[in-house]
């Protein structure tokens, strides 16, 4: 069968730093992956096409790139699954990272993020002999994050990194989780405090789910970030607007059966945080002009007492 590829090309030197699109049509085996197709192009059609790949078995993490706009590991992406009717496939380098050439991106952004989370075990003591004792469940729990192969797909498609390059990013936070959850590590509180306090830390995630969607190894970085938030709060880190936002959300729904948006904005900023409140004022005024300002006194939902009972029931269960 045939596959039609439209590949974004870039060469910083020989073509004066311009990007261009190049189309290739090649014959492939019906079971071929997108990587097989690109290797076929590189080996038989166009030796100038640059891409990274090594294991072909989704364990080395080399071949992350965008297929039809979303990051994927192309070694585990079969052509028939993404182009069942022979549609043209658009192939681009991953996002949020600097392009070196064609489909090859610089790894500097990714590993700079990883380095921010002290990505190594910091045990409190070293056993005199033998290994650390830990339950098998606690170790298997960490597999979720150890499955990460550092391919960078989550970083590529992270919608926060698109606008805030200071965000530690989904992969590095999943890595951080791997240490806060490791019973052998002695720096859990320090790690959580740092991730909570730092600009670009756990509260910068907008929960868009993109990283969960594109991760080829089931790491689900956003879920790890949410667990880090809970752990940070439980460890007493309640000084962030992220925490106030969560708390206000909880309280207003419990009280009114629905969200009090005005209060949420003010609670999140902090009642004493004058500069931040002044920042919010123009938004409030603009919303008012358009008739979109939420009510100052919140509406209550009709059966808000039922909502309260739901809270009590759920919280009772978790106790």
């Amino acid at each position, binding site marked *: 069968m045939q596959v039609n590829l439209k590949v974004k090309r870039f*060469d*910083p*030197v*020989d073509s004066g730093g311009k990007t261009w699109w190049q189309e290739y049509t090649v014959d492939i085996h019906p*079971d071929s992956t997108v990587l097989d197709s690109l290797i076929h192009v*590189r*080996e*038989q059609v*166009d*030796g*100038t096409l*640059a891409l*990274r*790949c*090594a*294991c*072909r*078995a*989704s*364990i*080395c*993490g*080399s071949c992350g790139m965008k297929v039809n706009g979303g990051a994927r590991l192309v070694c*585990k992406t079969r052509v028939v699954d993404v182009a069942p009717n022979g549609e043209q496939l658009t192939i681009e380098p991953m996002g949020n990272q600097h392009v*070196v*050439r*064609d489909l*090859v991106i610089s*790894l500097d952004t990714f590993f700079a993020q*990883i*380095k921010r989370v002290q*990505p*190594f*075990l910091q*045990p409190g003591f*070293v*056993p005199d*002999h*033998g*290994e*650390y*004792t*830990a*339950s*098998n469940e606690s*170790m*298997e729990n*960490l*597999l979720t994050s*150890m*499955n*990460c*192969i*550092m391919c960078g797909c989550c970083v590529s498609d992270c919608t926060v990194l698109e606008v805030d390059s200071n965000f530690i990013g989904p992969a590095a936070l999943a890595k951080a989780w791997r240490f806060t959850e*490791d019973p*052998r590590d002695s720096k859990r509180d320090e790690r959580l405090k740092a991730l909570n306090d730092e600009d670009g830390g756990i509260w910068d995630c907008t929960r868009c789910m993109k990283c969960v969607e594109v991760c080829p190894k089931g790491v689900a970085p956003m879920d790890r970030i949410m667990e880090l938030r809970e752990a940070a709060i439980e460890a007493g880190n309640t000084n962030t607007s992220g925490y106030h936002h969560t708390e206000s959300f909880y309280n207003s729904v419990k009280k009114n059966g629905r969200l009090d948006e005005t209060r949420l904005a003010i609670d999140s900023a902090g009642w004493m945080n004058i500069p931040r409140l002044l920042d919010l004022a123009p938004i409030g005024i603009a919303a008012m002009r358009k008739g979109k300002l939420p009510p100052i006194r919140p509406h209550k939902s009709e059966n808000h007492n039922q909502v309260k009972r739901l809270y009590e029931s759920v919280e009772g269960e978790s106790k």
Partner: protein
Amino acid sequence: MYEHDVLIIGGGLAGLRAAVEVTKHGADVAVISKVHPVRSHSNAAQGGINAPLTDRGDDWEGHAYDTIKGSDFLADQDAVEIMSREAGEAVLELERMGVIFSRGDDGKLGTRRFGGQKKARTFFVGAITGSAILHVLFEQSLKLGLNVYEEWFVTKLVIEDGVCRGVIAIDLKTGDLHTIKAKAVIMAAGGAGRVFEPSTNALICTGDGLSLAYRAGAPLMDMEMIQYHPTTLARTGILMSEAARGEGAYLLNSEGERFMEKVAPDYMELASRDVVSRAEQTEINEGRGIDGNVLLDLRHLGREFIEQRLGYLQEVSVEFLGIDMAEQPVPIQPGMHYIMGGIKTTVDGATIVPGLYAAGECANVSVHGANRLGANSLLDTVVFGRRSAAHALEYIKSVGSNSKTEEDLATEKARLQALLDRPTGERSATVRDDMARGMTKGIGVFRDQASMEGALENLVNIKSRLPAVSVENKGKVFNTDLMFALELEFMVDCADAVVAGALTRKESRGAHFRTDITERDDENWLKHTLVYRDETAEHDTRVETSPVSITQWEPVRRVY
């Protein structure tokens, strides 16, 4: 100009373990690798790492004997003793660095069974043991602030007055060629699987390290010993870990029969790899296969167990073949997987070239002999990676800094420029593919004089085409096209040594099984083959032999 006390080529397990050791002792070290360390092929090791732990009722002699028996008595017993004695501490040390090994109910490390071994002594992380260890060693490298030349491709070792003094390498991101001086160089550049097609190996396993050392005068030892792994996924050739059989999976032929009963009644599916691969190939050759495969059956293990302990296998089976292993047996076949052969070293990793060390798959100590046991390769990397570093640290104390190395750079620049300037000819990929298919055909699970001569003839043809291989990409930045042409030259060197070794050994031993001479011949061939590169000799190879070290285990007939 770059300069280090110790330069390590390769950022996989052997390289990173060596680097950690050098750093601990305060010497200046750098790793150079054509890929980022976490992309290394150590990732692909799935099932586990062996270690006999005495507090678990095991002993080093048991592991050593299983290893030696597995090697069909070709392993050097002094080297195996060292590996088995140091294994426990090597594995525990990895755990203390942060590896999340699976545990038993007592919270201590748990084991699974692996092939060719009497005891369950394989420590593991699901079916991603290599990846889990590699990533932890990488974490340690970040902690120690290790200097890594990422995506630099070594084209030549710098040898002065017979002593290794550094390397010449291309920085792939800029295309510039540099000299990196070093008092000692540790070769930890991995295997040469791509000399064969198909192979379970990553596309980066092109024998660079073997060839670089071979060109510098080091002999390659027992290169005819090519491991065909018994379970590689049909059509794709992806590795399906021995852990599947270690946890109880069956091998079935088209008649639903557990055919291992015929050849290994005691060990069944867990006989050593050469034995199992031959049994499978026999079933396939005699018409009891299914489209050139036999079946790996895990159904009786249950879905929960499969997903928990062998999750990665289930992932690739579902995603690449659409087969749910809890419901259906999965078709597999023997596939080229590992080279037991490699750069001959002492038990301290030293080669015959002063200043040049080797560890990991590119080296041959020899602990694997004619057949490696599963889960001994990871052990080999960490034990001998550390030992190479320790010995190199001693060696550099007596080495002064050097000044002459710039001379080679101009010569090497001219060589690469000439390659770029060649008129349009054959693509390196076409020549590589022809070479690798010829190697698999001639030096397969079964081989004989005629098939090996066929491989040689094919190689003669390949070498005649080599000077006309051209590079289409003339650019500087990330020019992999140029790198592939250079890798092909490395692979041809390895192929030379494999064929020369194979044609020399007139017996069947371990992975070298000749259908025309089916017996092992200890009287004449209980020895290593050593292939030297010699451009004045026919086929550029000169073959010698050396004795096998026997300490306490006299060779006996191998029965599983």
